[in-house]
């Protein structure tokens, strides 16, 4: 690599340090709050369309996978829009860093679901609890660049995930409440934290 290439590389490293240490302000409370409503709507749909999820595991997984994809797409679109509006040279770098923090949890959740559904469907009752624990890990990993109270959402998902594993036994494990309450309340909590942090930032700025 020539001197100029090395210089550009050094600048990229400096920028990446800056992006890693800056608070990520591109998660919108409205989009996160919307995912809480999505969880409630999916729970209602489950009670209507998949009344016996233990016997129709594929339908149950499809419903919640679609819900998760919809929630992720909503949040991703909102982040992209906010990052573009920010007109900051660092925005793209920050979005990449944030995606890098959440992707391992997302990939682990997806692969775990596929492996359990395919090879060990008798263990599928654990999935709601495991999803919540994996989301808790994702939140904790992203917390470094999020408002400090966001850890509360991480603790909430960890607690509800463990409670689901400890208390929910087949057939209760697949109850719509086991998904609607943890995700609905957790996302609403995250939205409120972002809303309050946004107000505090406006005062700082």
């Amino acid at each position: 690599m020539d001197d100029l290439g090395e210089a550009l590389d050094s600048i990229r490293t400096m920028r990446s340090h800056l992006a890693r240490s800056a608070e990520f302000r591109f998660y919108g409370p409205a989009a996160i709050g919307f995912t809480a409503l999505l969880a409630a709507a999916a729970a209602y749909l489950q009670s209507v369309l998949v009344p016996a999820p233990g016997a129709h595991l594929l339908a149950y997984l499809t419903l919640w996978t679609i819900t998760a994809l919809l929630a992720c797409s909503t949040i991703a679109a909102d982040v992209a829009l906010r990052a573009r509006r920010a007109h900051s040279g660092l925005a793209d770098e920050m979005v990449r860093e944030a995606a890098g923090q959440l992707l391992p949890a997302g990939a682990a959740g997806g692969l775990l679901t596929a492996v359990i559904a395919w090879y060990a469907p008798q263990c599928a009752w654990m999935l709601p609890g495991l999803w919540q624990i994996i989301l808790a890990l994702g939140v904790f990993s992203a917390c470094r660049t999020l408002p400090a109270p966001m850890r509360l959402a991480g603790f909430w998902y960890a607690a509800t995930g463990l409670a689901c594993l400890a208390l929910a036994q087949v057939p209760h494990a697949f109850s719509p409440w086991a998904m609607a309450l943890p995700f609905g309340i957790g996302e609403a909590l995250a939205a409120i934290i972002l809303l309050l942090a946004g107000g505090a930032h406006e005062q700082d700025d």
Partner: protein
Amino acid sequence: MSKTTEGRYAYEGLDRVIHEKARLGILTCLVSHPKGLAFSDLRRLCKLTDGNLSRHLQVLEEAEMVAIEKSFVDNRPHTSCRLTPAGRKRYAGYLNVLEQVVRDAEEAAVLLRTSPA
């Protein structure tokens, strides 16, 4: 922006306060430690003497880019330094201009290599 635009190569954003080797090192070090660093750690990481570091920190503090807090820890004086939000913003702007300078130089080098003798 056109290559012939007036001021295309003025690089106004190359902030003189930051554009000094030691101060650039100090700021980059503080960027990597958003909660701040003790004076002694900053001195060790930037390989500066006490006097040099104090002088550069004073410049950065006067420019409101760095906040210096003096306190007592275990009955011993403790000085910690951290980047201010304004410092972070100016540093980010500086990096943008610096990158533009290197890209322009790279482009010029490519042109020089490909143009017939």
